[in-house]
C-alpha cells in the first residue's frame, strides 16, 4: 500500500511551495514495529518523513479540530483514508472546521491491520514488520511469518464499505473497489440474539479490564467537547474510580455521544492499551442509524445528521 506515498509527498511539497497550506498532517514511521506516528510536516525537507501503510490505523481528523492552528484559521492539508475523510466531513457538518480551511489528500484504503491479532501469532515480541503488496512479513526473535494482509485486517476494515474518501481535493491514487455486504452488522446481530442477562454479562466482561485512560475517547475525532462529562466536577456525573458501574456508565455514554456521528474508523479500538473492542457499543448505534434513518455519517456535506433535524418520517413508535 506504500505505492502512493511518492504521490502524497509530491502533492505535499507542491502545496507547501505554493503556500496553499501551512502544515500537512500525515503519518510517519514509529519507533517500534507496527507503530505509526501522526506527524505535522511544514517544510519540504521533512516531506520524506511521511509514510502510508497498513499500520496507520488512527484517525487524522482528530488532529484537525483539536489543533491550535485550526483555531487561527490556518489552512491544513490532511492525508485522509476513507474514514478520516468522513470524519473531516462530520467536523464540517458540525461546524468545527470550514471546508475551505482543509485540503484533503485522499488515499484509497485497502484496510488497516489488526495489530493485536498479529501479536497473538507470536509467543514473544515482534521485532520486524514489513509490507510487500498484500503480503506481510513479520519477525520475532523466535520465528518469521508471512501472512496475507487480508487475513489480519481489523474488523472495521473487513466490513468497511467506504474505503475511498467521499470528499477530497486530490486523490493520491485510483479509487479501490467498494464492497457491499449482505449482512453488514452480523456482529451486532449475534449479541442481539442473546438473552438480556447474557448481553449484560457480555458487556460487563468486555469492559472489566478498562483502566479508564480515556484513550478511546481521546483518539476519537468526535470527542471534542471542551470538558467531557466524565471530567465535570459540579455536578459530578460519574464516579472516577474502577467501580464497574462507573466504567459501564462511561462506555455507554461515550458511545451514545457518537450516535449518528460514528464512521466506524476503529481509532478507539486501535488506541486502547487493553485491547477492548469498544466498537461493540458504537456498532449498535451505527446499525440503528442505518436502519432507522438510512444514515451513514460523513458522506455528504449538505445533509444534516438524523439526530440534528426533525422529519415527520422519523420513527416514533418508541414513544408511548
Amino acid at each position: 500500500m506504500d505505492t502512493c506515498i511518492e504521490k502524497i509527498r509530491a502533492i505535499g511539497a507542491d502545496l507547501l511551495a505554493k503556500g496553499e497550506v501551512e502544515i500537512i498532517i500525515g503519518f510517519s514511521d514509529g519507533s517500534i514495529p507496527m507503530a505509526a506516528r501522526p506527524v505535522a510536516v511544514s517544510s519540504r525537507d521533512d516531506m520524506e518523513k511521511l509514510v502510508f501503510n497498513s499500520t496507520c490505523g488512527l484517525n487524522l481528523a482528530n488532529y484537525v479540530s483539536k489543533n491550535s492552528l485550526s483555531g487561527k484559521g490556518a489552512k491544513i492539508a490532511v492525508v485522509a483514508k476513507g474514514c478520516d475523510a468522513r470524519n473531516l466531513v462530520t467536523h464540517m457538518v458540525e461546524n468545527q472546521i470550514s471546508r475551505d480551511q482543509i485540503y484533503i489528500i485522499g488515499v484509497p484504503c485497502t484496510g488497516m491491520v489488526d495489530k493485536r491479532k498479529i501479536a497473538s501469532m507470536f509467543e514473544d515480541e515482534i521485532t520486524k514488520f514489513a509490507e510487500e503488496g498484500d503480503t506481510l512479513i513479520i519477525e520475532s526473535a523466535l520465528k518469521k511469518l508471512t501472512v496475507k494482509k487480508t487475513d489480519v485486517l481489523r474488523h472495521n476494515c473487513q466490513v468497511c464499505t467506504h474505503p475511498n474518501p467521499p470528499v477530497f481535493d486530490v486523490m493520491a491514487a485510483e479509487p479501490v473497489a467498494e464492497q457491499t455486504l449482505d449482512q453488514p452488522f452480523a456482529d451486532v446481530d449475534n449479541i442481539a440474539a442473546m438473552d438480556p442477562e447474557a448481553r449484560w454479562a457480555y458487556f460487563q466482561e468486555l469492559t472489566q479490564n478498562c483502566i479508564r485512560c480515556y484513550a478511546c475517547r481521546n483518539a476519537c475525532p468526535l470527542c471534542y467537547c471542551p470538558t467531557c462529562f466524565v471530567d465535570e466536577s459540579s455536578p459530578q456525573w460519574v464516579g472516577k474510580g474502577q467501580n464497574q458501574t462507573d466504567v459501564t456508565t462511561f462506555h455507554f455514554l461515550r458511545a451514545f455521544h457518537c450516535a449518528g456521528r460514528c464512521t466506524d474508523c476503529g481509532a478507539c479500538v486501535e488506541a486502547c492499551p487493553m485491547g477492548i473492542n469498544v466498537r461493540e457499543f458504537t456498532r449498535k448505534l451505527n446499525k440503528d442509524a442505518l436502519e432507522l434513518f438510512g444514515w451513514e455519517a460523513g458522506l455528504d456535506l449538505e445533509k444534516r445528521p438524523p439526530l440534528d433535524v426533525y422529519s415527520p418520517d422519523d420513527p416514533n413508535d418508541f414513544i408511548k
Partner: protein
Amino acid sequence: MNFITIDKNDWAAGIDQLKKTYLVFGPVQDENGCQIKPLAPDVQPEMGAPATVMSPKSVLFPQTEKILTATLDESSKDHHIMKPVDKNDTPRAVLGIRPYDAKAVQLVKLNFDNPDYKDPYWCDAYDITTFVGVGVNRPGPCDFSTSAGCGPFSEQGLDVLMADLDDRYLAKVLTPKGEAWAAACGFDTPADTAESQTLFDILQKEAEKQINTAISTDNLAQKTILDLYEAPFWDDVAFSCINCGTCTFVCPTCWCFDIQDETKHQTAVRFRNWDSCMSPLFTHHASGHNPRESKIHRVRQRFMHKLKYFLDKYDQGIMCVGCGRCVASCPVNIDIREVCNLMNDYQKDK
C-alpha cells in the same frame, strides 16, 4: 544469600502450598493480555508469559482503593466521622514479575515512605509483600532497562530472583522475606553457590546482549531546569499526543493519585484513585484557572518529572526503569527513549 533449585514439576504444588498462608499474585492471561492479578484458588501463575501490559504497582497501590468510610446516619454517635476500613493483612507474594518492576517499587518508595511522610496504605502493603522476580532471558524490543539503572537480572527491590532454566528454576534468595517465601512453598533443595552465581552471570550477559536500545542520561543532571523547560522540541514531541492516561497508568513508577468522596444512602466512602498528569483535570484549580492548560504543558511535565525533577530532587537516577511499557502502549508512539535523548543532548543556543 543462598541459592535453591526448584524442579518445575514441583512448582505448582509449592504455589498451592503457598496459597494457604499468602495472598498470591501472578501473571494471568485473559482476553486483554497478560496482567498481574490475585490468583484464584485453582489458578497458577503463567510464569513464561510475555511482559504484562500493566505493571504490578497495583499490588501496593490499587487503581481504586477504599481508604475511609463513615456513616451519615445522624442517630449514630459517630456519624460523619471517617474511619479506616478493615485491612487484609495476609502476607502477599507477587510471583513472576520482571526485575525492573521491583526496582520501580523502590523508586515509588521514595515518595510513599520517607522521613517527611509515610503513606499508611502503601507502607502497610509494602511491609507484608514479597517480590519474587524472574530474570528476563529474552528482553523485547522496547526494553531499555540496562541504560535506566536496572537490567534483565537486576536484584534491586527483589526478595527472590529466579532464573528460568527450562526444566527448573534456580532461585537466588536475597532477603529474609524471600526465605520465608521459600519455606512457605516448601522449596528447600540447595544449589551450589559459586556454580549458581556463574550461571546467573552467564544468563545476565546473554540477556543484556539482546537489549539493543539505550538512553543517555549522563548530561541530565547538569542541565538547567529552565533551559530544558524552554527547549524548542516540546511542540514536536507533543504534537501527536492525544492526552490519554495510558503512559501514566501503565508506568510502574507513576504514583500520582486523587482523593474522591462518594456517598450512597447512609454510607460515605473515601477512595484513592490513580490520577494522571496527562489529564487537564489534574491541575485544574477550583478558580477555573489551569496552569497546565495545553497538552504541550502536560507532556513536558511528564517527561520533566521523570527525567529531570525526580533526578534533581532525590539524586537516585531517573524515575524510569526502562520497562518500555509506555513505548509499547502509547497509541501514537511517543517514545520516552527519543525524548530522553533529546533532553540529554540539548544545548541551548547562546
